[in-house]
């Protein structure tokens, strides 16, 4: 712990240096960020505040800038967080911070650091940013690393690399592939085998955390965390369905994608319940306000968006409404707090994105309203999604869902070419209007 404490101080300074500020200014910023009450904030502000607090806690900083040691687990993007919160371990999601670095315009130097150190340009740009940040020692020292094998290879490999770099132990959760959507007897058997396999691994994870942090596990606490996770799930789902089926003038899809709830590290906190409840209530209030919902073609957004400064989303939203997104789609059932490990295993397994493309597309077809369009923003460095585009295009064409896949990148803007994207978007919107 002492070594981590000292190192995190250095790492926090390194992080502040990216912003061009020193420790004092950093402390002032933290104090001002958390000075007011959370009540009365908008849902997105509440979310931002929660994530900011979690971020500084990973550097042992509290909201009032005092120092307090925090156990930190670096977590791959799809690794569920409930057990971590039940054991007072703070998740640190390197890919999420990579997106934040891109928002701040600090990603390219990190990417170039990774590339100078033999990490290929073909690798996912979220991960290259994270690798560069590790090499530059910007992220907070982990106590442990918890990596899941889903969805993508670079994310899974990154955990092993960081574990080696910081000489901290890594736990790998091996997630079976392709179980969502199974309905036949044989599928059900496979699903149950997967649940057995994963729930045992979750029990192993608990032992791993205790062995490496000394934190004891209490099942009652996990049950509470599962309850919060269920409540958050309910509000998120209600918000999604209201925005999509009833309609609300409030929703600005490009901002709503930022919730990225499927991959967010906040599942299992009490605060996120409030965030998703506030989001739902904002949708309902604005729908009741009498402000008309703009009459534009409706879009379901696939994958993430460019996080660096760009005009793509605002341009798209001049012409269409993004009313739902893959990253906020609620795919798992309510969990049973009395059976937490198996429930968590089921939630982890039953993810449509970690399934054949046809299964994933079927999910969208089932709940979407025919005629609504899909825009997929797929980074070329993301093999998992980018490679799906052509198959999806054919499936959605048959189902009468206009579909556009944009080649881009969420983080690395060195090849950004707005003019080309704009041409493709224009053509797509024209075809959407014809349908509408």
């Amino acid at each position: 712990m002492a070594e981590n404490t000292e190192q995190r101080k250095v790492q926090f300074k390194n992080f502040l240096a990216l912003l061009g500020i020193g420790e004092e200014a950093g402390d002032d910023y933290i104090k001002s960020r958390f000075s007011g009450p959370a009540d009365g904030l908008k849902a997105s502000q509440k979310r931002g505040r929660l994530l900011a607090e979690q971020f500084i806690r990973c550097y042992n900083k509290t909201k009032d800038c005092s120092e307090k040691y925090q156990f930190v687990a670096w977590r791959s993007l799809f690794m569920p967080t409930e057990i971590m919160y039940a054991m007072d371990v703070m998740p640190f999601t390197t890919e999420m911070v990579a997106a934040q670095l891109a928002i701040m315009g600090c990603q390219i130097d990190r990417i170039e650091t990774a590339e100078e150190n033999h990490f290929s340009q073909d690798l996912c740009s979220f991960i290259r940013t994270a690798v560069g940040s590790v090499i530059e020692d910007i992220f907070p020292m982990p106590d442990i690393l918890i990596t899941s094998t889903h969805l993508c290879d670079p994310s899974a490999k990154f955990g092993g690399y960081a574990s080696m770099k910081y000489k901290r132990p890594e736990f790998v959760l091996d997630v079976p592939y392709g179980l969502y959507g199974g309905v036949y007897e044989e599928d059900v058997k496979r699903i149950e085998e997967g649940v057995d396999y994963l729930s045992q691994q979750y029990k192993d994870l608990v032992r791993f955390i205790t062995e490496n942090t000394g934190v004891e596990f209490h099942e009652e606490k996990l049950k509470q965390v599962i309850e919060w996770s269920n409540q958050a799930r309910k509000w998120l789902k209600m918000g999604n369905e209201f925005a999509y089926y009833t309609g609300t003038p409030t929703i600005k899809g490009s901002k709503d994608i930022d919730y990225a709830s499927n991959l967010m590290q906040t599942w299992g906190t009490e605060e996120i319940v409030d965030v998703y409840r506030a989001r739902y209530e904002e949708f309902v209030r604005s729908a009741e306000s009498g402000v008309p919902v703009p009459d534009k073609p409706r879009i379901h957004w696939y994958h993430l968006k460019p996080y660096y400064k760009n005009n793509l989303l605002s341009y798209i939203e001049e012409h269409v409404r993004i009313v739902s997104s893959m990253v906020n789609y609620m795919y798992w059932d309510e969990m049973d707090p009395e059976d937490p490990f198996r429930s968590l295993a089921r939630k982890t397994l039953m993810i449509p994105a970690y399934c054949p493309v046809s299964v994933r597309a079927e999910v969208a077809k089932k709940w979407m309203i025919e005629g609504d369009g899909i825009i997929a923003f797929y980074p070329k460095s993301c093999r998992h999604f980018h490679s799906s585009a052509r198959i999806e295009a054919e499936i959605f064409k048959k189902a009468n869902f206009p579909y556009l896949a944009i080649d881009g990148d969420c983080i690395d803007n060195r090849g950004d070419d707005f003019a080309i994207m704009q041409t493709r978007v224009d053509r797509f919107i024209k075809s959407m209007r014809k349908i509408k």
Partner: protein
Amino acid sequence: MEKKRIGWFCSYTPIELIEAAGFAPYGIREDSGYSHEDVYLGDSICSYVRSCLGGALAGSYDFLAGVVITHSCECMRRLYDGWHFKQEDIAPECIYFVDVPRVYNEGSTAYFAKQLQRFKENLEQRYGLISEERLIETIKKYNLTRDLFNRVLELRKQDNPPVSGVEVARLISESMTMERDEFNHKLEAFIVEKEGASGNPGPRIMIFGGPTDASLAKLIEGSGGVVVYENMCNGLRYNDMLVDFDEGPVSGIARRYLRKNPCPRMLGTHADHGLEEIRRLVDIFRIDGIVYHSIKFCANLQFMAGIVKSEFNVGVPMKIIESDIGSEIDGREIRSFIKNLCHKVAGKEGPRK
């Protein structure tokens, strides 16, 4: 009568089960489809997978009765998608998609054994019962191949090994497609011929890679090196460990495939073992240099390249080259690397006669 053939792609495919079902497993090689690379999956997928699907769409594998695809990495997962989606245009049916764990431990072995049991049952439903005796006999045949390749490796430990990398590349390639008994006889005869033979001098090279272009060994040896170990998917990684029967044939197969010298797809402690294995092989085979061949867009190989270059000292010089399956490997890079190693080896041993 010649057996019907079932194609496979990845060294994690449990080919013993295919053969026990009465078929000849046929390894789809790195050179089988590149002349008609597929564009269906897009250019972010590795060229091996694109060439496999391209080959399928162009009819290159129409002689197969079916194929088995493994979920070994994100590219292979899309090969299954592409094959499944375009099945009407592809003659051989994708008969099974095997999910393979990415860690090696008791839990993953037991889970994988269940998946293999399911695969076996699927084969039985299609083609008839696979008796335990037949499965054991088949495993013994494949174990014999592995034993024989281990004997080849013993020959390569010698100074000036009598076996060249080009010869081994050819043998491995044949082992993926030839009828098993016939191949075992051929390999045995090769070993007998080579035992006691004189060999080739030059810096001793390990090739590390995925389904690597067979021309690489030729290039290395044409530049004065001698390939003594192929740590590759279409190298000895596919042949390195025997199946143990103690826990039953299916469980034994499951353990063998998860425990073998790992492809960079593996994670956790077994990935660490794979790195240590490189060092161990460097010592055992007195390797002077490693040529690390990474197929472009293979995230696992590309990520591991970063690790071995920046975090893990393999103990000898290493040259990393990237290329597509069908593209020519830059000979200048290889020649320059081998030339430097020649100087280094000559410096160590004094002037050669």
